[in-house]
């Protein structure tokens, strides 16, 4: 474990050396997602300025939901973005073989190969939203609540990673995984708003099948003092289970991998 942590540090240092070669690109890349977030946020602001609440959620409360899912997404974006590229960049080119002959876990190698600076912008936006929301609502941050927030964001990040890992594994069969990953990944858009605005079936799917609800709606409800029962505490459990499942799926895929012979 410690060996892997220090290895990750080495990978990170190398990655930053590469990134710093192209400083302008680094800055554009890390800040550009802020514009996309701004589009979504401006929309919510423009609309909610004119109505008292969205299904009983005030503007600042919706920002908390939006902020939590954005933070969780940014964790995945920074540390596991390479799951998107596995098909076209590693498997199809045969570059994946490189990971298999090295004395470290291939999944670790894949993730550590590319820290993605593009996620920094999302992280900043998410953090700003949580701060703005809690200041406007006058939330009191006890140490327990801070711990809850950190664990909620990490669990949310893990849910993003696990779902992306499951879908990325399809690359071992299809040579290309982005289409599948994209469709599942995009369902997180639902989790930017209170799950209670949707049909019951949709919120069930986002709780038990594609559990992005645990990355936003349930922890936000708890932090805002709304009663969602045990759901407030299930996030880390769901994340751990999903990670375990996704790792099994990955191992099955890995066994299936036979290289492209190029």
């Amino acid at each position, binding site marked *: 474990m410690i060996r892997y942590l220090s290895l990750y540090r080495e990978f990170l240092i190398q990655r930053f050396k590469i990134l710093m070669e192209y400083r302008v690109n680094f800055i*554009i890349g890390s800040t*550009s997602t802020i*514009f*996309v977030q701004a*589009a*979504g946020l401006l929309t919510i602001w423009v609309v*909610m300025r004119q109505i008292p609440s969205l299904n009983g959620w005030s503007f600042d409360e919706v920002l908390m939901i939006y902020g939590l899912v954005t933070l969780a997404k940014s964790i995945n974006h920074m540390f596991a973005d390479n799951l998107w590229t596995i098909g076209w960049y590693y498997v199809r080119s045969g570059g994946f073989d490189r990971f298999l002959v090295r004395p470290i876990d291939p999944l670790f190698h894949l993730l550590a190969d590319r820290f993605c600076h593009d996620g920094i912008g999302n992280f900043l936006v998410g953090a700003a939203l949580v701060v703005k929301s809690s200041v406007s609502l006058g939330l009191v941050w006890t140490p327990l609540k801070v711990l809850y927030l950190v664990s909620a964001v990490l669990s949310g990040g893990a849910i993003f990673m696990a779902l992306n890992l499951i879908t990325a594994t399809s690359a071992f069969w299809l040579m290309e995984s982005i*289409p599948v990953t*994209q469709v599942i990944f995009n369902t997180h*858009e639902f989790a930017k708003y209170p799950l209670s605005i949707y049909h019951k079936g949709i919120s069930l799917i986002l709780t038990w099948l594609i559990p992005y609800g645990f990355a936003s709606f349930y922890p936000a409800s708890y932090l805002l003092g709304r009663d969602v029962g045990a759901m407030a505490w299930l996030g880390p459990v769901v994340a751990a289970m999903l990670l375990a499942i996704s790792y099994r799926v990955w191992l099955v895929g890995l066994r299936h991998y036979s290289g492209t012979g190029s």
Partner: protein
Amino acid sequence: MMRRLRRTLAIYGSVASMTPKTFLAYSIWVWVEFFLQIMAMIIFVYFWRAVYAGGGALNGLSLRQTLNYILLAQIILPLAQTRAVFRFGFIIREGQLIIELLRPLDFQAAEYADSIARLGLYLLLKLPLVVIAWLFFGLQLPANPAVWGAFAVALVLGHAVLFFFDWAYACLAFYTTETWGLSVVREGVAAFFSGALVPLAFMPGWLQGVANALPFAQGLYVPISILSGIAPLSDVPRLWLVQIIWLVSMLAASRLIFRVAVRTVTVQGG
């Protein structure tokens, strides 16, 4: 004169006819976009229903009108996304720029032919989406053929405005060589100010001012408000005129900027 014109049309016509073939080769992406758009529609329908839960009209628009507008905007939205940035990035990286410039036809005109063919193909491919929106989300389409005609003209004009704007914007790639970030910025700004996420009527005055000062609304808000009935037919000539002014100035700007920017390019030895 006539023969030359016919020859020119034949050349650019064959460029345009290549577009469907490349599309068919990547049909998986057509499906992905299809799923994503249905997903976005579902989210928007529930979001707007919750917004209108209090009943009545907001900014003079009823729930029905707003949903009609938003559903149509979501179907058209991918058209307002940029392609030129990626295309320029690609031809610079691969060293293809030289080849494009050496060809005995106008580079921009050839790309436009490709782009307009994409527009037609796109509309065809999206027909199932329109049917789904009509069946499940209560989309209403106008019965008056004049509205359809006005929409078609506004769409082609607006598409051209965005095409020439993107041409000028993509010239930034000659300086930065970074394209992902450029396209993300462009997409974020366009998604909001084109009116794809929320009708311009909802925005406070100063934001509407910004939206009108940017070209994106010409490509999306204008045609969609005609088709969804937000803009009455009597307003159409004025809307067209504004679009044409945008079109002419963007065309001039894009050619000028390209001529300046292309001098700076260092083609990587691909």
